[in-house]
């Protein structure tokens, strides 16, 4: 489905998104760049890859697909996109975390396009199951996409919902696990091993696939499976690199929410093509 031309466009969009996020975080001196950069292609594919159904400028369109960034520290990955599709004034991006501004470090219902509050891990999938079940109940065709952190999968509530969603055959629910293999204190497999997440989601009754989370071919190919899972909810284990795009941040847990010094800032801006 994804043509080369289209993927080039998406690559450009992903770079645009990384630049926007960089400027917001550096201006605010607040935010989680590496966590956003590991799911940048996922967010880009959702909104610009023809996956999420939405009406530009109309965040409350009842037919819209629901998107939840459950790893709330990366919820801001959506802010530039939501402004870009006309949900709110792009000038809000410059007021990120500022008093009187709309956009906070974590997302909440004040923000058009944000479906639920985030910040504490482990809530997004349960809320997403609620959206999906309500859609089924109302005979509505919208889908729900929940982006989870792999570290978030330590939370037991994720697996409570995983069981529930499979039992209810919520094939209108998609979980994307941003598998960057890092949490704050180090590598997941060294701290408490998450193991084979694809197999775990499959064992919980989901149709589960594993893709390169920075490859639009991979991510869009996985989203293409929606509706073709034999009634199962879809889990996409997206293997990613935390801090993707900034060489000195890539795969380094210490950058979770650290601000770069002047020299690092210059290097990052060069790598992002901002200078």
């Amino acid at each position, binding site marked *: 489905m994804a043509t080369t031309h289209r993927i080039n466009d998406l690559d450009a969009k992903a770079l645009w998104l990384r630049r926007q996020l960089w400027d917001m975080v550096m201006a605010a001196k607040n935010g989680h760049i590496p966590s956003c950069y590991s799911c940048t292609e996922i967010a880009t594919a959702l909104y610009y890859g023809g996956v999420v159904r939405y009406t530009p400028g109309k965040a409350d369109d009842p037919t819209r697909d629901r998107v939840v960034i459950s790893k709330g520290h990366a919820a801001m990955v959506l802010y530039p996109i939501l402004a870009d599709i006309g949900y709110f004034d792009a000038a809000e991006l410059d007021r990120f975390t500022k008093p009187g501004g709309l956009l906070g470090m974590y997302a909440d*219902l004040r923000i058009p396009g944000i479906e*639920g509050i985030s910040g504490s891990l482990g*809530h997004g999938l*349960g*809320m997403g*199951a609620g959206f999906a*079940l309500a*859609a089924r109940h109302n005979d509505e065709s919208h889908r729900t996409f929940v982006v989870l952190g792999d570290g978030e999968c330590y939370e037991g*509530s994720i697996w409570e919902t995983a069981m529930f969603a499979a039992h209810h055959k919520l094939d209108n629910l998609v979980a994307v696990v941003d598998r960057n293999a890092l949490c704050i204190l180090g590598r997941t497999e060294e701290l408490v091993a998450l193991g084979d997440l694809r197999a775990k989601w499959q064992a919980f009754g989901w149709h589960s696939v594993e893709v390169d989370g920075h490859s639009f071919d991979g991510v869009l190919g996985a989203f293409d499976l929606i509706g073709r899972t034999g009634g199962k909810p879809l889990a996409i284990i997206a293997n990613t690199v935390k801090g993707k795009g900034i060489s000195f941040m890539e795969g380094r847990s210490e950058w979770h929410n650290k601000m770069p010094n002047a020299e690092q800032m210059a290097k990052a801006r060069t790598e992002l093509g901002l200078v």
Partner: protein
Amino acid sequence: MDAAVKPRLMRDVVIEAICAAARKDKDILFISADLGAVALDDLRRDLPNQFIHAGIAEQHMIDLAAGLALSGKKVFCYAMAPFITARCYEQIKCVISSMNLPVTLIAVGVGLGYDHATLTHFTPEDIACMRALNGIEVLTPSDEVMAAAIVYIALSSPAFRYLRLDRQVFPRLYGDDAMRVLEIGFGIVRPGKDVAILACGALVHKALAAAEILAAQGVSAGVVDIVRVKPFDGAALAGALKGYRSILTVEEQLLEGAMGSAVMEALVDATGKLDWRLKRLGMRDRFEVVNGDRDHLHSLYGIDTPDIVRAAQALANG
């Protein structure tokens, strides 16, 4: 008050009312974390699309309820008191409270209701922890009539509420006056002059028994049923207690932050002073866990009828 009709379990009355409303409104959803009731069988059988078994998974139940409420559903979550409060407190705080969602949390067996199950099933802290939540309404019916009145409000104006149901059957205290009492938040179930005994739920009935004994001893004790502990109209209570010299609160809770605390806070906030002799009865920190029925536990923890009588006498004679 119709004494001829046999009193019923609060939960059956509440679930029947929800079921009746749900037959007319498909947006009413009832989620259970594996707790049943006689009345629930009808709802499960007749409205299978409006009954959801969450699994024994209270954290998931609350997040799911949030998603459903955000989708326009009127959601009732139902579980044993300890498991619908402390077990999923962070979920309630983060997704229900913080987004002010119209979800009613129905707890069964509050306080020491699950007497023989002991500590894991007790909720000696549920009033304190739940009333600490932003935007919540905390309600404790002391009879099935008040339980029905509360569920009527919950159905007609959905909001974030915590409904504390007892698992015992109690004699009726209310009739047509229930709705009016609910509006104020407390009801004077026995008038008096000397000591006002404030209680909620099961202990209202022990307070009434104590007031009877006190009357025989020459002490006029009134009994006030604290139905809604949050939000609380301190000025209205201060007005209602104006003629009393003393206030005694009694509850199946640890004293820290519970109903007695809420009452004192509200009176201070409303009047800037406390013009009464005061005593709070409740469970003391580091209470012991023992086998025995609820009456035995009340006696052990100093909140049984004779304890209320003694405390009221001490206030009256002080």
